[in-house]
């Protein structure tokens, strides 16, 4: 039973992943990628990682939907009205990636994998939580800092109007000059 689910989802994940670069429409490409992630998440659920599997589903849906918006903004031909190709060096890329796959597959099948050590914990989620947040919170601190730096950097990069545009050259305005007013009475 588990094997059947795994195989179905694995084939689905690979097929959806391949579809990302085959379909004409950007919206379809985004949702093909999402499908690939969801299939992978089901496979992760098979590995008794309930939290991580569900987390992947949650994160990826949000990411992909946001991605779709950017896609409409910036991409050529988002709806796939005209079939077109946006590739360069297709043959080379195909050769490199096929080679990579053959190499990895050979390694996977030829290596003698070690036997499993230790027993799985009763609650994998708790194990993860303790690893992330345990004694020194090292992982969490690093990830948190990275995410924080990302937030600052992305806002700085994507921002068009700075605070002098909004509050005046002397920052003298109490109410910022925004094109559309927000809801907190500013």
């Amino acid at each position, binding site marked *: 039973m588990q094997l059947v689910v795994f195989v179905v989802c694995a084939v689905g994940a690979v097929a959806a992943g391949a579809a990302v670069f085959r379909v004409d*429409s950007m*919206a*379809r490409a985004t*949702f093909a990628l*999402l499908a690939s992630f969801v299939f992978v998440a089901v496979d992760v659920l098979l590995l008794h990682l*309930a*939290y991580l599997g*569900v*987390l992947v*589903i*949650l994160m990826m*849906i*949000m990411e*992909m*939907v*946001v991605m*779709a*918006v950017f896609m*409409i903004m910036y991409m050529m031909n988002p*709806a*796939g*009205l005209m079939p077109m190709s946006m590739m360069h060096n297709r043959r080379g890329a195909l050769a490199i990636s096929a080679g990579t796959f053959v190499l990895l597959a050979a390694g996977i099948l030829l290596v003698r994998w070690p036997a499993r050590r230790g027993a799985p914990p009763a*609650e994998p*989620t708790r194990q993860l939580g303790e690893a992330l947040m345990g004694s020194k919170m090292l992982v969490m601190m690093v990830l948190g800092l990275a995410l924080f730096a990302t937030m600052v950097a992305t806002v700085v990069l994507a921002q068009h109007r700075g605070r002098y545009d909004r509050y005046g050259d002397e920052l003298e305005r109490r109410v910022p000059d925004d094109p*559309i*007013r*927000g*809801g*907190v009475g*500013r």
Partner: protein
Amino acid sequence: MVRQAPLWTALLAGAVLLALATIAAVGRGVAVARRAAGAGTPVAEVARLLAQQRRSTLAADRLLWRSGPAAVCVAAALAALVVPLGRWTAWDSPVGVVWFNAMEVVVWAGLWLVGWGANSVWGVVAGYRFLAQGLAYELPHMFALTTVALGAGSLRVGDVVAAQSGLWFVVWMPVAFVAYLVAALAMAFWGPFDAPAQADLAGGLGAELSGVDALLLRAGRYLMLTAAAAFAVPAFLGGGAGPLLPAWLWSLLKTVAVLGFLVWLRDRLPTVRMERYTELSWLVLLPATLVQALLVAIVVLLR
């Protein structure tokens, strides 16, 4: 306290969800008509939509468009799986709280597909609008659920219910409860948060839908609202706890009460415009839920 029921009860959960959603729709019909005769309106609407042609628009992406409303319905049904009915739950998932959250996010994808697929200006604008709404409600919602999990020390919905045997969470997590209710309205694009499906966008997401597709989208909306109301019961209102009556009945009664409140709100308040709500959500609601989570964390540590 809450136990895993046999697998077939998953179907029962779906049936109960559908029944409650129907009650909500009928209640709304009565409220609109302000008399009992309105109760037939939802039924008549279902009949009309079933007999109606499914239309299409120029250059619509039919695959994506048609799958959107179905995704909303499926998401609501899956989200309802982890909600316990009294002492039984169809799926006692160890990460039930996260599961509910993930399924609620599926609605995003579904609604965006509905908006995009029709290839109509109303739909696309409504899709954008729902995303703005989604990003604004999602973080307070997540922190509300985090607060609940924090108070219970577990992501399992059964443990959350058990943790409320003394004091319901709504009493000492009022901010989280309010944020949750706001999110419940927003995820079902209901009540004051119906900007993505509003008259000013000619129906928005549903502007180009007809026939079965329109029926599915509306059903999905009611199902999602019902699922959200049902999840509020184990998360904040003590699950099936209550005197005299059996636990399952208490669960149902509380769900109906929350659902009735949400449906009643629809006529009481005008739609919140998105540019106003996003600022409020990011600047007021989000910090408030964070402070709430901090307070709960301190209480849990000291306890």
